[in-house]
Each structure stands twice: as structure tokens, then as C-alpha cells.
């Protein structure tokens, strides 16, 4: 019974298996064991292994920031940024990034945060809450909504049906508004990519973020074009995205009580605000950094990060800190059920992502986060203790979008046309570097090692490896698994609660499955994501 989540299959009739989980990035399967209407146990399984990073070994170091973006087509910019930062360190230029280079990187990464968050709520998550069928008798004048009605009239309803049935709670007018938002979101997320490509050349997989800074010339007309698009995106976040979260919360308020998770939060900080500090974990950053556990906030220490493979499909020797990690695939390993490793901080799981950043920032005195969160708590009529929840994650993502979108307006004004964006680079014979930042989905780290002027080791520890991790050697489930366990499921044939919890984490499986590697005689051992 290799490959599946074996022990659930022995308990006849009580297992819910969802394979594939859709409207996420990548290949994921969830097995849940339900008894008495409650999830008693759950396993989160990554079902694709590309073995991506060992492909990097032996290649030219500068190629890493291009190739690692291809780990994920939804958040490539975060990988390009983390990779460039690891190379900044390895090449000795981490404190020599020109002002324009730093600001351009922030603008590009910010554009993709907005793209990713908007895509996630509307295109991925919203169909769990919104009933497209409410448009069947639409009589209004909006041409897009009339197109939806025409679509329904043709009776071929892919990809909106089949679906889970029985828990769409919004009234007709609300559904119409949310479908309008869904369609508008598809265009606005495209606008975010247009913004990015002004300086990044193209999206997905930009070519603008490089070690030492950025490639694109800064000109006044590029700034002007970016500004026009950013104003549109800002208006959407303000007028459509954030209101939509409150609309959904109004009908599904119980989801502030569902799916709290491990309540241990980790963030590395995102968007560098200073040019001078060579250590990414010491730089001033827009989004906060820290570990919030048991109500106490602590500084992030790279040495606290380890990975455990007790229940991952890798040989047992692979449980280690990422800098010393090995990843030897073991597809048929007993008791293994996922291609995801289990990252741990101080030997415990941690949730990463917008909620983690909001919790860390709220606890740490981050002014914008406190102001946004406090206002939202009042508007939603809840206390801060409800943030760790399905709706809390959606809310945190939306509020973070507003903070970033507003800040980007200021960054645009800081660009200096005509000044340098990049730095001279020299490839050392031997070096190591770590790049730590935040992807839209959470804490992201890239580790590079260079020998003989080529990559000799490359490792990534990415957001969904944290959130979607399997159990560790102590038997402690990962954050998504913990969020599922204890959940009441009203209808086992339509387990809305399960998929709403999973999607609130915005999983990205392509990022999280390690690739890995042989202990070849000439290449040594390395780990890839």
C-alpha cells in the first residue's frame, strides 16, 4: 500500500480521501479520518516529485535566480528574489545593491504579492463560498454577468460544476456581486503582471531580478505607466477585495472558529527598506520578522530551522538542518505518505504566510498591521483570538495586500531615473549564501553553496513545506493537518469544511516538494526543493 496514507484505509467507511485537491497550486491529496462527525486524524500528501534542485548542481551560479523561479509559476518572483539574495551574499555584494536595484526588486515582488493574493481569494478560494448558479436568471445590464448567464443557458457548466453541494449561503444579490468581483479579479491580476513586466520583462518568470540588483533601466515613463496600473490595483483592493472578505464573513461567520491550526507563527520579513546591511535577517523590512509561539515573540535564528523526514519519502539520514541536509528519495518507504519534508523550528511545526505575518506584526508593534487589524476586528465584530482561522487567513491576506499596495506608491516615487540598478559581479571559487525573505505564501529560504565557480549545493525551504508538512518523528502533525483535526464535518459526501481549511493556507505544492539527490561521487550530496 505504498504511496497512500496507509492506516486510514483500514478503517472502513470513515475515511474521506480528496485526491486531487484542486484550486491550489500543484498536486495534493488529503486523507481525513472522521468519526462521530469530527475529523480525528488527517494526512496531507504531496503527490508530485520533480527532483528540481539537483538539476542546479554543476551549473553557473547566476543561472540559479532564473531556474529556481521555475519551481513555481504562481510565486516565481519570490524565488527569484530569495535566490538573488543568496547570490548577493555568496558573491559578496549584499551591501552593495544600488538604491534603484533594491526599490525595483521590492516593486516587482510587491506586484506579484498582489497578483497572487487576488488570484488566491477570487479564482481559487471563492468558489467554495460563492454560487455561480445564482446568475441563471440574471436580468441586469452588466455585459460580463450577462455572459455568465449565457454560459449557464448553454448548459455545459465546466469548470464550475461538478462541485460540493449544500452549503452556499449568500443571497442572490450577494452572489451576483461576488461573481462580478471574480471576473474583475481575473483582469486585475493580469494588470499586476503587467506592472511587474515593466521592470521584469515578462511574467510569469521575470528576468529582471538578478544578483546585485535589477536589470531594467529606470525611466520616468516606466514609472508613470506603473503608477497608472498601480492605482487601478489599489482601487480594486480597496473597493472589491477587502469588502468581499467582509461579505463572505457575514454569511460564513462560523469560519472564524474553524481551522485554527498550530498557532505557532514564523516570518522572515519581506521588502528590504535599507541598502546597507549585508545580513537579510538584520535588515529593516516592510513586513515583520519573528517567531510567535505561546504568545511570546522571539527573533528568528537560522539555526532553529531543521527538516524531518520520518514520514516523508526520503531515507532517514535526510533529517537535518537544511545547510547539512541530504535528500535521498525513498518512494516505497514504510510509514511515509508525502513528498514534502517536515520543516521544524526548534523542533516544532510553524505556520507561515499572511496570517503568520499579521500575528507576528500585531504582537511586535508593527504600526500598519496593528492599525489594519484593529479596524478589521471592529468591523467584523470579533476579537484577535479569532484570527487563527479560515476567515482570519483570508482577512490577513487582504489587509496585507492593502499595506503593500499603498507602500508601493511611495516606492515608485523613490526611484531615480538614470541611476544604476545593478552591480558588477564576480563569481568566487568557493562561497556560501543564504537568501531569506517572504513569498506570498510565507517564509522562504534559499541556501546556495559554490565550489570551483559552479553550484555545488542548492536547497530551498519553502512556505508549503512548512504548512503542508507531514508528521515528524515525535508524531506531531503539520500545520494544515493540525488545522483539520478536530473539525466538525456536517456532510461527509460534501466536506466543505475540509477544503475551505486547506485553501485558506493557499497551498503551493510545486514549491514544496524536494528534489533530490544522489550522493554521487563527483557531485556530493545536496538537497533541492
Amino acid at each position, binding site marked *: 500500500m505504498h504511496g497512500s496514507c496507509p492506516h486510514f484505509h483500514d478503517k472502513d467507511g470513515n475515511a474521506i480521501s*480528496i*485526491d486531487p485537491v484542486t484550486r491550489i497550486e500543484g498536486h495534493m491529496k488529503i486523507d481525513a479520518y472522521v468519526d462521530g462527525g469530527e475529523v480525528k486524524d488527517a494526512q496531507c500528501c504531496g503527490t*508530485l516529485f520533480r*527532483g528540481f534542485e539537483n*538539476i542546479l548542481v554543476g551549473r553557473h551560479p547566476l543561472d540559479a535566480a532564473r531556474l529556481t523561479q521555475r519551481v513555481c*509559476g504562481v510565486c516565481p518572483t519570490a524565488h527569484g528574489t530569495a535566490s538573488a539574495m543568496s547570490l548577493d551574499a555568496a558573491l559578496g555584494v549584499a551591501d552593495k545593491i544600488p538604491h534603484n536595484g533594491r526599490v525595483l526588486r521590492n516593486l516587482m515582488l510587491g506586484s506579484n504579492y498582489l497578483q497572487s493574493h487576488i488570484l488566491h481569494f477570487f479564482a481559487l478560494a471563492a468558489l467554495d463560498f460563492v454560487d455561480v448558479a445564482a446568475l441563471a436568471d440574471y436580468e441586469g445590464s452588466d455585459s460580463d454577468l450577462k455572459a455568465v448567464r449565457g454560459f449557464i443557458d448553454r448548459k455545459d457548466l465546466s469548470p464550475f*460544476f461538478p462541485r460540493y453541494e449544500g452549503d452556499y449561503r449568500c443571497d442572490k444579490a450577494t452572489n451576483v456581486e461576488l461573481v462580478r468581483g471574480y471576473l474583475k479579479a481575473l483582469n486585475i491580476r493580469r494588470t499586476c503582471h503587467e506592472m511587474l513586466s515593466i521592470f521584469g520583462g515578462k511574467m*510569469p518568470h521575470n528576468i529582471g531580478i*538578478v544578483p546585485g540588483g535589477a536589470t531594467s533601466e529606470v525611466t520616468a515613463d516606466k514609472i508613470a505607466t506603473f503608477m497608472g496600473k498601480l492605482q487601478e490595483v489599489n482601487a480594486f483592493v480597496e473597493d472589491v477585495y477587502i469588502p468581499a472578505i467582509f461579505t463572505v464573513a457575514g454569511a460564513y461567520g462560523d469560519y472564524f472558529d474553524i481551522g485554527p491550526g498550530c498557532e505557532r507563527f514564523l516570518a522572515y520579513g519581506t521588502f528590504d527598506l535599507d541598502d546597507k546591511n549585508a545580513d537579510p535577517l538584520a535588515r529593516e523590512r516592510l513586513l515583520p520578522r519573528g517567531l510567535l509561539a505561546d504568545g511570546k515573540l522571539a527573533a528568528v535564528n537560522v539555526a532553529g530551522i531543521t527538516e524531518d523526514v520520518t514520514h516523508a519519502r526520503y531515507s532517514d539520514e535526510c533529517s537535518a538542518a537544511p545547510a547539512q541536509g541530504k535528500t535521498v528519495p525513498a518512494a516505497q518507504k514504510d510509514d511515509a505518505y508525502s513528498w514534502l519534508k517536515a520543516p521544524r523550528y526548534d523542533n516544532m511545526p510553524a505556520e507561515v504566510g499572511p496570517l503568520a505575518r499579521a500575528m507576528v506584526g500585531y504582537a511586535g508593534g508593527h504600526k500598519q498591521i496593528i492599525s489594519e487589524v484593529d479596524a478589521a476586528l471592529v468591523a467584523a465584530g470579533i476579537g484577535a483570538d479569532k484570527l487563527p482561522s479560515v476567515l482570519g487567513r483570508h482577512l490577513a491576506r487582504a489587509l496585507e495586500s492593502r499595506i503593500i499596495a499603498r507602500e508601493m506608491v511611495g516606492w515608485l516615487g523613490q526611484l531615480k531615473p538614470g541611476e544604476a540598478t545593478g552591480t558588477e559581479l564576480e563569481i568566487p571559487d568557493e562561497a556560501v549564501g543564504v537568501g531569506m525573505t517572504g513569498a506570498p505564501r510565507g517564509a522562504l529560504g534559499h541556501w546556495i553553496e559554490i565550489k570551483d565557480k559552479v553550484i555545488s549545493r542548492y536547497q530551498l525551504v519553502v512556505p508549503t513545506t512548512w504548512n503542508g508538512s507531514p508528521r515528524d518523528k515525535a508524531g506531531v502533525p503539520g500545520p494544515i493537518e493540525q488545522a483539520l483535526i478536530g473539525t466538525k464535518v456536517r456532510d461527509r459526501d460534501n466536506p466543505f469544511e475540509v477544503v475551505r481549511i486547506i485553501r485558506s493556507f493557499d497551498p503551493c505544492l510545486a514549491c514544496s516538494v524536494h528534489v533530490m539527490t544522489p550522493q554521487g561521487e563527483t557531485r556530493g550530496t545536496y538537497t533541492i526543493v
Partner: protein
Amino acid sequence: MSEVIEIPVVWLPGGACTGCVVSLLNSFSPSAGSLVLRELTPGKHMSLRFCMTAMAGQGRQVVDILHDESAKDSGGYVLVMEGTLQLGDDMFATLGEQDGREVPIHEHAAELARNAMAVVSMGTCASFGGIPAADGNLTGAASMEQLLQREKIDVPLVNIPGCPPHPDWLVGTLMAVSLYGLEAVAGDLDELKRPKMFYGKNVHETCPRRADFDAGRFAKKFGDVGCLYELGCKGPVTFADCPTRMWNTGTSWCVGAGSPCHGCVEPDFPDRLSPLYEKIDEQRMDRFRLLDPHVQSASKA
């Protein structure tokens, strides 16, 4: 209401990053919403039967769609393959279960291809293997064409490479099929099964910085003006219309943002086009032979 013909599309992800789906979402005209809701061309509508990123359903209910489509003997659907097929071990890539066993994605792909009207390999991974099949991979990653050959499946195949492909390249191809028929599109492919209307011209030949190349003005570091040839531009061995079509609603393209072209639409991507930032080594690049002779001599000089 007049009868509208539905063209079912099954979008199957293998060893992929979802970048091809996200690129398709960037389609401007028609928009992604229009592609799903409105008629593609008058009287014909594309029905997105299976797409992991978009569909409302999950689990068994969507795996059943794959079986329903592949069971059709009418051959009325298009299979779009994104990503590689992991042939090295059946556990490397699975999707859904049947009789208590996880089903390898390459089995879904073969079953669906066998009964399809046509197969589109979307992106460089599905077309040629791309990064998952590059040196150092452990998964036996293969392109769709390699799978079709292995399984001896004879079905019309169109490659739409690119990492990712421009949305127009897929949408334009589908529209051409809808308007003029599959035979017309199949009859206008290059030797790599790419539609010539998108992949027929050399990037270097149509590059706005070509005048810099001819005049010997070369950028030496990122941010410099001038031709990016010495920074490793692979435009001379790359065939695509990026310089004129441009990306993200005509906003820019790689060279437009000061970066060399990496040749991501080519079968040599990434291995023989690496290092990406080093000058072309014509000995290592199969497609160098396609270059204009005067560029060949200039670059050897």
C-alpha cells in the same frame, strides 16, 4: 438560440509549475473570463472540462471527468498537457486513485491522448522536457511526444513551447483550429511541431537592439544600453515572436527589460543554452545552423 458547438478541453498537469496556466490567465484579448464564458469563435465554445487550477470540484468527482472524457470514442476533445511525464517511478507523479492504487499521471496522459482529437503540449516541459528533464534530473522526466512514441499513440500533436508560453500562442492556435480546422494548423508547423505563425521568426533578426549588434555596441553589464549578445543573449538561436508581440499585454519582453533572451522556447533550454549569461557557444547549440550566415561569421569573429 442557435446551436453552439462545445469543444471540450482537458488540461492535464504533470511535472509542472502552473506557470503555463498563469500565463494563459494573462490573455488580454480574449480575456481569461471570456475564454471560459464566451464563444471562442462564432458558434463554437471551449468547454474547460478539467483544469486543476480553475475547477470547482475536487477528488473523485473530478477524476471521474478524466475517465468520462477518455472513454469517448468520438475523439471530440483536445488534451492540453502541461509539464513533463515522470516515467522513472510511478510514485513520482500521481493523480487520483483507482481500485486503491494511486494512478500515475503518465497513465492518465496516455489514456486521454489515445482518444483525443488533438494533443497540445503547453510549455517547454511538455514540448521538449525543459528543466525537469535537464541534466541532473532523477525522475525520468519526458516530453509528451516521447510518451506518445513510447506508447505508440498516433494523434495530431502541436507544441506550444515557452517557459512559459505567451498566452496568444495557445489562444491563437485554438482560434485557428476553430476557424480553419485542425488540418490547416497541422499543415503550418515547423520541424519542431510549432505553429510557424508564432515561432517562424528569429529573435535576433527582429530584435529592436539589432542595430546595436550591427554597429558593434554591446552591453557589458546589466543596465547598460546596447546589444546583449556578450551578456549571453540566445536570441540568435531562438525562434519566437517575442520582440514584436511583446509580453503582458504588449508591455515589454526580456530584452526590453535589459536582460538577454534565454531561448526558453527551444529544445536546448536549459542545458545547451547554459550558462544563461555567457556568450553563445555555437559548438554546443544545435540550432546555430539555422542562423543567418552573416550573423554566424560575426559571432565567430
